[in-house]
């Protein structure tokens, strides 16, 4: 392993090692102070930023397309290998840089924002785990490894949604998001399996595996399912407002910057395959367009700042999907970078937005004059009202999902419970309560 490879390994592993050490020490009884935690976080991400800058500098100076680190096989069984390959190329480097930079910034912001919060240690541990998962997903040289990072991002995302664990709504919303993530991740698992089966490998360090047209289409659609779930695209958009229950810094980095764009990154990775599959490309474009329209309509009827921002993010990610489907790879990357940066800033400013408005109103000596000009005014009045109702229920997406998937599944489970209670003579009513709390209207954000 050359020095550049070692540097990449350091960038990816640093937050993971910090998480592992701190978590183990905490389990054994040590509780770090806020100052120690924030300093460790600052040093870790600062060092990572410099290390990543070195990689970018060296690659730019030498003109090399990428730096690859082969760490052997994680495990190998006859013909099946799980390669540990890290790779930083022109696609992954922007995402790696974004992750390291924003994680460091969020760490510094949160040291003040969450000062004396009961979950301070938990938040920072999860921030490190999230950064590790993201870096692993973006620096993975194979889809196998990408799955590992991808799932870590999902788990930390859910744990941070349920961060304010004393209240029921965040916890239940976290459960709902977790269920959606797991359901969509089946697509990723099956897609990777299909690549191994048909292409012989799931590594993309030396190009995507070669497959026939139908096989490529199948893989693309499976991965599209995973990408749509992670990026909250239609029909999975219902989880996004629920995710706003988490603390603002985590909302900023997850749903304004990194996690929400992970789906787009996955599609960018398989873009050479997408280009040769018009059906899959058309589906990506269609999903993107529908999501963008859905996001902008629902966002207009959202009553709180974070949810509005979340739907604004959704709209932009929908547009990014369209760009990827069309084949504008680098426009999509530039769009993601710009969007992630601006949206993170907006999320971080959201709690003090009212204060900002008051200051501006004081400065101009009164309130802003409403223009009264809105795009929806172009529609006829009945359609406006219908759209308003539709937007208030967030496109009925959760209701549809409940009726098509959740309720039948719960009904089946209760039927099984009745069958299982045969011969015991006990009341079935103890099993009657539907376990997954699937409220139609998610709790509002604002923490």
């Amino acid at each position, binding site marked *: 392993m050359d020095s550049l490879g070692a540097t990449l390994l350091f960038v990816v592993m640093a937050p993971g090692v910090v998480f*592992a050490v701190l*978590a*183990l020490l905490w*389990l*054994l*009884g040590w509780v770090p102070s806020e100052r120690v935690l924030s300093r460790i976080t600052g040093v870790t991400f600062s060092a990572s930023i410099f290390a990543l800058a070195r990689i970018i500098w060296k690659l730019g100076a030498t003109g090399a397309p990428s730096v690859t680190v082969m760490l052997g096989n*994680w*495990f*190998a*069984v*006859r013909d*099946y290998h*799980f390669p540990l390959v890290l790779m930083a190329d022109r696609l992954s480097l922007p995402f790696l840089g974004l992750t390291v930079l924003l994680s460091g910034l969020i760490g510094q912001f949160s040291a003040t924002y969450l000062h004396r919060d009961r979950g301070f240690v938990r938040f920072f541990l999860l921030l490190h785990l999230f950064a590790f*998962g993201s870096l692993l997903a973006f620096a993975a040289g194979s889809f*196998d490894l990408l*799955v*590992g*990072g991808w*799932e*870590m991002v999902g*788990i930390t995302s*859910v744990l941070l949604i*349920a961060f304010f*664990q*004393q*209240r*029921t709504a965040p*916890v*239940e919303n*976290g*459960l709902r998001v*977790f*269920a959606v993530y*797991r*359901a969509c*991740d*089946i697509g990723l*698992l*099956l897609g990777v*399996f299909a690549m*191994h*089966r048909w292409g012989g490998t799931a590594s993309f360090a030396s190009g995507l595996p070669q497959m026939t047209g139908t096989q490529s289409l199948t893989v693309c659609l499976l991965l599209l399912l995973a990408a749509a779930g992670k990026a909250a695209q239609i029909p999975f958009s219902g989880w996004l407002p629920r995710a706003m229950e988490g603390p603002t810094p985590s909302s900023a980095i997850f749903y304004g910057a990194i996690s929400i764009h992970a789906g787009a990154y996955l599609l960018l990775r398989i873009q050479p395959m997408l280009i040769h599959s018009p059906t899959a490309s058309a589906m990506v474009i269609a999903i993107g367009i529908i999501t963008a329209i859905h996001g902008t309509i629902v966002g207009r009827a959202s009553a709180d700042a974070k949810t509005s921002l979340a739907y604004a993010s959704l709209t932009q990610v929908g547009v990014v999907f369209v760009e990827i489907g069309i084949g504008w790879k680098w426009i999509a990357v530039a769009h993601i970078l710009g969007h992630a940066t601006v949206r993170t800033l907006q999320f971080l400013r959201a709690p003090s937005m009212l204060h900002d408005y008051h200051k501006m109103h004081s400065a101009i000596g009164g309130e802003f004059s409403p223009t009264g000009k809105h795009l929806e005014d172009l529609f006829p009045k009945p359609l406006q009202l219908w759209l308003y109702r539709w937007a208030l229920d967030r496109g009925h997406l959760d209701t549809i999902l409940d009726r098509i998937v959740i309720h039948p*599944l*719960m009904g*089946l*489970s*209760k039927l*099984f*419970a009745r069958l*299982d209670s*045969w*011969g*015991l003579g006990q009341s079935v009513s*103890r*099993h009657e*309560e*539907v*376990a*997954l709390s699937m409220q139609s209207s998610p709790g509002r954000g604002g923490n």
Partner: protein
Amino acid sequence: MPVPGALSVVPISVPWLAAILVVGIGRQPRAIGFVAASVSVLASSFLLHAAPVKTSLGEALMVLFSCLTVVAMLVLPRRDCNPVTIAGMLFLLGSTLLAYSTENLLVLLVAWILTTVPFFLEQLFRADTWRPRLSLLLSSAALGLAIGIIAVNGHGMSIDRLIGQNPGGIAVFGLLVAAVIFRKGICPAHAWVADAAEGGPAIPTALLLNGHFGALLVAKLIVPLFPHATRDLFPVLSYLALATALYVAIRALTENSPRRLLAFLALSQSACILAGLESQTVEGMTGAFAHWFVVTVSTMGLFGILRLLEVRFGENLTASQHLGLAEHAPRLAVFFFVFGLALVGLPGTLSFCSQDLLIHGTLATHPLTGLLLPIAIAMNAVSVFRLFTRLFLGKRRTGFTVMADALPRERWILTAGVLFVVLGGLFPNAIVALRPVEVEASTQGVDSQTDTSHRPPTAPSPIPKLRQSRRSSAQP
């Protein structure tokens, strides 16, 4: 390195003698149990180390189960730690190790029955419903009948000599499969597992379930003895296992009793082991053996933590509402979360690797029914997370007189468990490599039988071949 014959007896006899001692003197049961189980760990480890080729399923499982019993001894709350319980657990340890180590059918039957005896006795671990007793009885009867038919047909009792002989034909094969179904809790005989977990003592029941005798019977008897029937009829059991994994996963979604819910999760994940073993692919079988380790450690950790919670916060814990116990026991919450997600494929734990292999192996053999496996695992993950959120998150509860988090004794042993699943995940080859030679040989055997129809029907299976060669190489 030759192994002294006496040493082979130590891991089995010491727990049995200690069980008698505990009941006899009636004092210091935890200390005696811990020492006896530790001796079993050491002796089993020596046996594993002394094996010429480190590919021994039996010795590896002996080490695993001995370690599990040590964990159980330390996690067992003081309230449950009486001489009778400890003696029962030691008896279970000795009987289980006897089943793992034997190469004789009659001894296997005796060990099989002995492991069930404590669950029939009211003074020990008997559940308050009849289904566990019936299932255990039926499984023992099925195995006894199968072995009886083999004996009547004039075959010997040595497993080695029966390899590939198809002893007793389809009747014995069917009886052995029935024994697996009843013991393992495969649908439709699955309900007893939840009954036993809810109505019996949590930790001893977890020990019983983690013996995985159903999977043991598949690996030790069915595959080696019936290579052709395995090829032709095994898919049926595979489908049943996959159906069980999904059925129980769906069933768990609305279960509100934490013990039953954990039992369903353990059962669903255990069914994945069978599905992997029956996939007849090297990935699936290796994944199954790795998953065996994961399920064993994780479910023991989960049942142990649940029992600790019951002792602290009352036995009426429910998943129908948020109990907010993380405020009182944050470390137990973290342990529970890690063990729970380690059971269902958390990245960075051993189950991530084992399930990766399982899914690949099962899908390769059964492209359609294999799809049930990732779906079942995803549902199990949701159930684990739901149980975690219901038990530990939510508004802080008040009114408890005892609100201790994990005690140092519990903390250290649970940390060891977490380290096992995490380090196993970081360095999975240590576990995966335990079986490759035998697994590859067995799958090659199946492949070659599939490819070459002229192979004689009595051709021995590769697994015992390896055992024989190991044994012969062990002799000077």
